[in-house]
């Protein structure tokens, strides 16, 4: 099989990987041990494989790895600083927004992208931001509450990431 090299920054670390030209980003990330990127439907419908590419949430099952050459990727593994959780992660735990946890990484990342751009969202904006992340456990009420609580808790970043 033909291979090519891929240079990306994942969670702030530079990586150089050998991939196949037809590899999807989801498969590459999981192969490299980023298990927080979940395989839920492989059709871009469920959002469990959400990662941030240049700060924007995308379904990693719909994007070829080769497309993100030179790009910056954030997965759930890169959100906490050691044992210090991101306010979103804290809020998800405190509000019972995590049940099975399978959709949680994608949902938290989608929420992070929202809060980075819109530090004080309305409930409607939160629901819009999470509409691409199916959850079969929670009924979304607690995740939405958690995002709103995290927004209230989070210090507004001095530099708003784009």
């Amino acid at each position, binding site marked *: *099989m*033909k291979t*090519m090299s891929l240079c990306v920054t994942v969670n702030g670390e530079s990586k150089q990987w050998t991939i*196949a*030209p*037809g*590899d*999807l980003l989801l498969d590459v990330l999981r192969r490299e041990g980023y298990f927080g990127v979940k395989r839920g439907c*492989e*059709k*871009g419908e469920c*959002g469990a494989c*959400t990662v941030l*590419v240049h700060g*924007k*949430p*995308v*379904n990693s*099952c*719909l*994007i*070829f790895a*080769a*497309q993100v*050459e030179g790009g910056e990727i954030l997965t759930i593994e890169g959100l906490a600083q050691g044992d210090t959780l991101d306010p979103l992660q804290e809020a998800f735990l405190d509000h019972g927004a995590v049940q099975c946890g399978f959709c949680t990484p994608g949902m938290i990342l*989608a929420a992070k*992208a929202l809060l980075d751009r819109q530090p004080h969202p309305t409930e409607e904006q939160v629901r*819009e*931001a999470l*509409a*691409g*992340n199916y959850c079969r456990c929670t009924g979304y009420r607690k995740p939405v509450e958690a995002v709103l609580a995290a927004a209230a808790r989070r210090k507004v970043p001095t530099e708003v990431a784009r």
Partner: protein
Amino acid sequence: MFDRVEAFYRPESVPEVLRLLQRSKGQARMVAGGTDLVVEGDRSVRFLIDLTRAGLTYIRSRDTTCVIGATTTLADLEESTAIHALAGGLLSRAAAACGSVQNRNLATLGGNLAHGSPAADMATPLLALDASVVVADGEGRHKMPLAEYFGRAWQNGASHALLIEVRVPMPPQNGRCGWSFQKFGRTEVDLSLVNAAAGLQLDARGRVKWARLALGAVAAAPFRALPVESLMAGREFDHSLLAEAGEEVMREVQPIADLRASEEFRRELSRVVAGRALEECAARAGCSL
């Protein structure tokens, strides 16, 4: 799934894209957002050509035209101030109704149009706005009305020519104008069972100066409902005109029946959705029924 892919190209210019397309002799697929390509899962693909670095991501507002590059994402359209200013933000609203945030961050305007889906949500507002497209092939660049592009795409398959950009003429700013995009899906995040885009200008006495109406997902390709438009021109905007327009819409649509809805339901919905679009236009133009 794409295990037979031999090479992934990231061309940085349109000529380079065209050269690669020619060289791959039909065994290549163009990748922009990938949202349709990957879902389709065509196992026979041998070459992938990434269009997103070919310089086609732009929104340029000129005096009479707004030009949108083919790899501009739906998220870009949703957020662009230039697009917000165009026809009361019609394109932004249509873009925001497509899929989820994740989908809109990847999906491109070109992909939405070139894929030839009858339900493509961006097609109807662009048809209503009289947009044209520029395509490129080995022989050069050609401009054609969007409606003609859909006709050709359905005859020849869309992949022969590369969609470069979409040109949207600035709609008239004077007078009481209103635009609307309406969509009906089974749930909030869904493809359209029916969608409609409409524009309307009313004169001082509440008469329709002109009307535009495009419908999606109720025929083989999205289309302009020209008989409806001419029926409305010069008439007073009221319930009976809306009812007449609705009847005409039901005559014009040619919906299919599938697991998502019956033909009958789609026909009925197209009347309702078109009516709501026209009503919203009128409301935005200052005339509420």
